[in-house]
């Protein structure tokens, strides 16, 4: 069962992604609107709106990845059971990747929709800072040696706690349909189907990546422990 987990989810993700690409480009309605003079509205997004599907899809699971990472770090510090640490670090690796995708695609959308590459508004600032904390986590794991897992867990927990402060401290909100409405509620009906399909595909993708990474990390740890045990027993050099 465990051996099949990654191939299963990866296949689901692949099918889902292929289907979403088709659905997003050929089934979902093109977004545009007319102004009073009968011309296209300057804010019509046309094809750019398609970016939203996989930008938001990745963003959802970025939040999940961060929560899993924080929870895993907390459990690891409590129980010192390495399997929690495996989970936390794998989820953080995937979160870094998803975060990079979110930031880059969001920036391209911003250029298309608002003609600026970047804006210091709440969600963007928060995402960037969260991503920096995650990258710091990865660096610490890599370069801090044996105690890296502890330090990184501490970072993850502190990072989670500082999120509400980051949220409070930034001001204007120009993200599309941010705040109470939420992006999902304001989607026109034709777009909801494709949207949920992409979200589901990216969930399978996230699960596949995390399980693969967890298995890999666990195997590395076991090999390391075996080698150390061999050295201790004097069996190995």
């Amino acid at each position: 069962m465990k051996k099949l987990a990654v191939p299963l989810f990866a296949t689901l993700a692949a099918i889902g992604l292929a289907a979403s690409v088709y659905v997003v480009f050929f089934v979902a309605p093109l977004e545009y609107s007319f102004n009073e003079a009968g011309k296209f509205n300057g804010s019509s997004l046309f094809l750019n709106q398609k970016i939203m599907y996989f930008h938001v899809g990745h963003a959802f699971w970025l939040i999940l990845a961060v929560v899993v990472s924080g929870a895993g770090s907390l459990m690891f510090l409590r129980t010192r059971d390495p399997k929690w640490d495996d989970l936390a670090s794998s989820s953080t690796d995937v979160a870094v990747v998803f975060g990079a995708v979110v930031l880059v695609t969001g920036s391209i959308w911003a250029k298309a929709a608002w003609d600026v590459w970047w804006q210091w508004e709440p969600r963007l600032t928060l995402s960037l800072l969260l991503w920096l904390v995650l990258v710091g986590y990865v660096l610490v794991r890599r370069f801090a040696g044996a105690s890296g897992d502890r330090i990184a867990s501490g970072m993850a927990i502190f990072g989670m706690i500082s999120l509400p402060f980051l949220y409070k401290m930034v001001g204007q909100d120009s993200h599309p349909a941010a705040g109470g409405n939420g992006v999902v509620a304001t989607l026109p009906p034709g777009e909801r189907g494709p949207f949920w399909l992409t979200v589901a595909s990216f969930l399978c993708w996230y699960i596949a990546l995390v399980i693969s990474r967890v298995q890999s990390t666990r195997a590395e740890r076991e090999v390391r422990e075996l080698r150390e045990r061999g050295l201790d027993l004097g069996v190995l050099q």
Partner: protein
Amino acid sequence: MADLMALFRHAARVAWKDLRIELRSREIVYTMVFFGALLVVIYSFAFPKDDRAIRGSVPGMLWVSLAFTGTIGLGRAFDRERENDTMRALLLAPVPRLEVFLGKALATTALVLAVAVVCTPLLAVFLNAPLFAYPGQLILIVVLGAIGIAVVGSVFAATLLKVRSRDVLLPVILYPLLVPLFVAGTSCTAALVAEIPNFDAAWYWIQFLGIYDAVFLVLSIWVFESLVIE
């Protein structure tokens, strides 16, 4: 209540130990303060000197100086423990580890405040910035900022004690976590330094930073033991 008093007394004693050692050689204080002063001199050359630009950039200059010198001070303070291998002795002492941590944090706060005491007048003089127009609020925000830097910094500097690339890893870990602190500090200072000072905003940020400090102090106390124990 008595426990709390005992806690603070022990923490103060640890802090006093650190500060007394420091006062003897004054190594960290001198280097930190001098580094801060050099930063101010560099800013004087690096940024335009018209009045509006100064009012805009002085908050950033002050808090960046505190950030950099704070990181250096943290690194050096814990380096000293590592070099003399006194960390083990400290942990073996019949003082709960929590108070060791609080004592270190207190000592670091004092060091950062020493830098602030020197850098702020320097900024006001070299750049002709009206930093001391409202000294009460400014002192408050700088003290709160120093406490925040010291508390969060001490946790991670302690964990990085034996790590090889700790010098560069400490800023890597610390700065993203301290961003709310720096935003609060610079926004408050900017509100105080502006042509028409905005006291509401200044008080908002002072309260914000106070809550931030309180939350992270509690979090550090919870997490310190499990993070630093081998």
